[in-house]
């Protein structure tokens, strides 16, 4: 996926919204910047399919040799799919965070949270100021 087409949160998650039979689906992952900052990844935990999330809820955690970080869902909705193979192939998260490194798909029930997200340019500005 082209990062220019994605929305970003302050906590380094990216979101890609598509429509499927009238429902809005958000695909969520973490940015290349986040992956680089974390350095060597050792562990990833994703939620169960069916889990209901509210904007700001933790949906999983990622551990590197440096730290354990929580990942947050920016919108309300239900987890309808997870990238189940990803915890066993963390390299692909490092190599392709915006593609093969996607983590969860959420059927959006309230998209208010999307308004708080940044476009790629604004996100890059945030990263350069961090």
């Amino acid at each position, binding site marked *: 996926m082209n990062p220019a087409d994605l929305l970003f949160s302050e906590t380094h998650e990216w979101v890609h919204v598509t429509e499927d039979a009238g429902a809005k689906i958000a695909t969520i992952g973490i940015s290349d910047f986040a992956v680089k900052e974390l350095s060597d990844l050792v*562990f990833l935990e994703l939620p*169960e399919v069916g889990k209901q999330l509210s904007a700001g809820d933790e949906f999983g955690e990622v*551990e590197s040799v*440096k*730290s*354990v970080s*929580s990942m947050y869902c920016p919108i309300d909705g239900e987890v309808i799919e997870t990238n189940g193979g990803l915890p066993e192939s963390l390299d692909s998260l490092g190599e392709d965070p915006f593609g093969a490194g996607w983590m969860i798909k959420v059927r959006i029930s309230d998209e208010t949270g999307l308004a708080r997200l940044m476009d790629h340019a604004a996100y890059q500005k945030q990263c350069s100021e961090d």
Partner: protein
Amino acid sequence: MPYVFNTPEDQRAMLDAIGAASIDDLFASIPKSLRFQGELNIPRGLSELELSQHIGELASHNSHTSDKVCFLGGGSYDHFIPAVVDALSSRGEFYTSYTPYQAEVSQGNLQATFEYQTLICQLTGMDVSNASLYDGGSAAVEAVLMSMNITRRPGKVVTAASVHPEYRQILETYLTHLEVELVTVGTPEGQIPLDDLARVVDDRTACVLVQHPNFFGCLEQVEEIANIAHQSGAMLVQSFDPISLGLLKRPGDLGADIAVAEGQSLGNPMAFGGPYLGVMACREDFVRRMPGRIAGETTASGNRRCWVLTLQTREQHIRREKATSNICTNQGLYALRASIYLALMGPQGMREVAELCVRKSNYAAQTLTSGNRYSLAFDTPFFKEFVVRDSNGQIAQMLHDASQSGYFAGISLGQWYPELDDCFLMCVTEQRTKREIDSLARCLVEAGSAKTIHA
């Protein structure tokens, strides 16, 4: 670490350096009205001689295993402690060392912890051990919490009446403020009825907590219990007796997902009930959910073997509210003693101790029940403990009389199991001799009855 002096000259120099006239000056910021005036209402200080006499007098009120023959069990055991355990563990480098806040400074301690973990993994057949927890009861509870976390099933935990009643009390305390249903399967025949268990384990159940050998000394059908748990996606937590593993299959081979134990019997004294050693080991899949510290081996510069505290990112001092547990320490000295004991005994020594326990406890059970008064409460095979029913039913008086005659004959069970108030739990370790067993049996024939003549 060097001994740090604190002479009057040192104090003077320090006071001069900060510009204070006296130590009292350091408290000047506390208003006088808030400070205690006058003499403290405590007795005058004692000299060393007086103090030893006073403490000796107090201690003489305790009765202990060096002046009575011990048949007590129930989680604390009178096993032999080889002299090398005391000799090595009392070395100053180990005995007085507190956890250094930069753990890697203390390579010796970390290596000892790593060796302990390795021995526990070999003993249990599990993949990973932590650096130890407080005691067998808290280890069992931490394992239950861990299983709730792993299975993401916070709603239900199943255990059995044959698990140590005090461990179950600790569990109840920990679970009090969680929304979790604790189901305890009854064990009227001394072991878990599989049908009853299967009826209560469901897809909401986080784990089944069993003890094997159980609190009554009886063996449980752990493999079948593991199947029942796993069929519902629940985990099996097994509390085990480390000494029993000289003979019995290891928890890892029986299907346990987390194995926990009271490690006191591995070279540690009964010490009137503590401090003790909490053992915990699990399968590798669950290592990130395991509470406590884990020492790991790695390579330092120059390709040197060295040790670190690993997976600390999940610990309480780093992650606070998201930590796996609020446990933030281990029983370093007792874990070290357990390592020395296990290394000294080896598989052959562990087997010999376990065999002696089985033979001697079976001999004791036969001898004691050869008359009319006593019988075994359960006919399930046991390891080193067994439940004895007294047809006279005067357990408290009988145990009291036995104590007067020089025997800790056992533990009365009525306090936890009303249906067993005419029963007591008796334990026979490798330390008991045939003569001691025979004379206890003779003593118990009369104990608690009016005819007893006190020596």
